[in-house]
């Protein structure tokens, strides 16, 4: 009987054959933390170990509230910098113009590699599955324990197979697909599971698009989400691999799945996730005309150059009717957008361009909502209070839908703006 990706990758890490539902202890290859590295360092010190086990496996990216909006946030950053220096941790992306959103940097800088086991103290760590890694989010105490011992336990997850064929129609993009999938399988559709994306629809996707779908794996409960590491991945990592122990691993053709779903991308239409859950799916036609007060383009889901280009395509020679906050996912993305004239297009339209970081996505700064306000956002969560006030409303959508909506000040079908 064949093995799933999760069985193979965790078996490789454990050093013996494993199957779904076994508990294994493995040593993660990469351990990512962001601003929460500060509190984690305090928990680490409570354990009583002097030094982290594998300093070279730890990676810090300051992104959640940068530059620090309050002194409390600044303390987190200070603690991370001091801890990295004290422990000889070589990988720290500070808020200088080499940084960005943690998941973007981990991928962009060559930490995300096929076959590696990667943990992060952030639920969207599942993004690195776009590169064929087994990557999953963990809590702060768990991360402190991994720093101290170098290891962590996992139940080898059962797997869900998502088979994707077909091509998007104009005005429709990857975000519309993943929102539809989550709407169908619901918020717990893949609880405790490894989600594997298969099929020509995925093979045709760019790495950036694969990051968008793997990023949102956690929104339907997945432990990890992953795409097959193909030539596109090999080309993307070539020359910048931070570790040498990677290996392309993929599920066997006769692997056993707990669940299987099929999608034709040609059937997908522009859609949103309505407040206050990510699985509250609706076609744009159902919510068209809903008044918005803010549009947000960015986040680890959709803040990459391809996303900014899609939005700029719609906003060219137009003006936004509501405040529109744009946050490129990294300074590399920012500069690329600058070189291509994308930033000029967005600025001409009236957008506010902020520095790379997480911004309003988790209610910390740069674009917080007032009570009663509604936003349309390319981020990955629309939970109550997520962007600041509990009496505000968030619709999730694609970069094209967000751009089209920003022009009219109400939720708009992007196909009307093409």
């Amino acid at each position, binding site marked *: 009987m064949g093995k799933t990706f999760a069985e193979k990758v965790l078996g490789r890490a454990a050093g013996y054959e494993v199957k779904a539902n076994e508990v294994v202890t493995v040593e993660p290859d990469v351990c990512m933390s962001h601003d929460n590295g500060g509190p984690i360092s305090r928990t680490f010190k409570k354990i009583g170990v002097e030094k982290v086990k594998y300093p070279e496996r730890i990676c810090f990216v300051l992104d959640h509230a940068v530059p620090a909006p309050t002194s409390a946030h600044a303390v987190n950053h200070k603690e991370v910098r001091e801890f990295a220096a004290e422990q000889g941790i070589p990988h720290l992306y500070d808020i200088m113009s080499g940084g960005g959103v943690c998941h973007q940097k981990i991928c962009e800088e060559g930490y995300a590699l096929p076959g590696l086991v990667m943990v992060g103290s952030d639920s969207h760590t599942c993004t690195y599955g776009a590169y064929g890694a087994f990557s999953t989010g963990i809590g702060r105490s768990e991360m402190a324990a991994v720093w101290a011992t170098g290891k962590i336990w996992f139940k080898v997850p059962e797997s869900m197979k998502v088979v994707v064929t077909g091509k998007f129609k104009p005005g429709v993009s990857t975000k519309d697909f993943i929102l539809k999938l989550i709407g169908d399988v619901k918020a717990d559709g893949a609880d405790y599971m490894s989600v594997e994306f298969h099929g020509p629809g995925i093979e045709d996707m760019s790495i950036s698009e694969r990051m968008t779908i793997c990023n949102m794996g956690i929104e339907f409960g997945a432990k990890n989400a992953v795409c097959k590491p193909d030539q596109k991945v090999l080309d993307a990592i070539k020359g910048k691999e931070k570790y040498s122990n990677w290996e392309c691993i993929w599920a066997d053709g006769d692997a056993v799945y707990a669940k299987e779903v099929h999608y034709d991308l040609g059937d997908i239409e522009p859609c949103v996730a309505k407040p206050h859950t990510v699985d509250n799916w609706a076609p744009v036609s159902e919510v068209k005309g809903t008044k918005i007060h803010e549009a947000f383009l960015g986040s680890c889901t959709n803040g990459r150059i391809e996303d900014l280009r899609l939005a700029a395509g719609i906003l060219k020679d137009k003006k936004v009717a509501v405040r529109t906050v744009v946050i490129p996912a990294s300074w590399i993305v920012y500069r690329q957008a600058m070189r291509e004239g994308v930033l000029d297009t967005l600025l001409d339209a009236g957008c506010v361009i902020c520095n790379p970081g997480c911004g309003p996505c988790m209610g910390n700064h740069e674009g917080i909502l007032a009570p009663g306000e509604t936003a349309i956002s390319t981020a990955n969560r629309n939970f109550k*209070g997520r962007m600041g006030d509990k009496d505000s409303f968030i619709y999730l959508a694609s970069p094209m839908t967000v751009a089209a909506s920003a022009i009219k000040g109400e939720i708009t079908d992007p196909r009307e703006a093409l």
Partner: protein
Amino acid sequence: MGRVWKYGDDVNTDVIFPGKYTYTIKERSEMAEHACEDLDPEFTKNAKPGDIIVAGKNWGCGSSREQAAICLKERGIAAIVAKSFARIHYRNCLNEGLATIVCPEACDELKMGDEAEIDFKRGVIKANGKEYPFPPYPEFVQGLINDGGLIPHVKKELGLA
């Protein structure tokens, strides 16, 4: 005996502990003051030690923020009873030594404001003159719980306790 606080499906960690506090509140006791702030202001004000949360499926979905477990633990919540748990939050609860119980029958029958008691030794929830049995933790997890959570467990493992 504790009061039952009853909630529905897919309660996420943002409404249990809002993200806006993630980097500004550092004391565990202060986290407890904000427990379930965007879910139920009544809970935030009135939940008492020994109270029990009874929810639907997928309790704790969303962010990996451990404060969502810490704020309930510090509040003295005796256990969270749900039809199912989201995995990161489930691990966070275990790691904080906060009891998580999967018992769909109790979730269907118990109501907001009921009085309930949990007998961990026998593995039953007692409420309204009825007993609802729940499965014990797997052996591996039980070891973690017996040690009082992950950090004490790691200390013991490393010979530092």
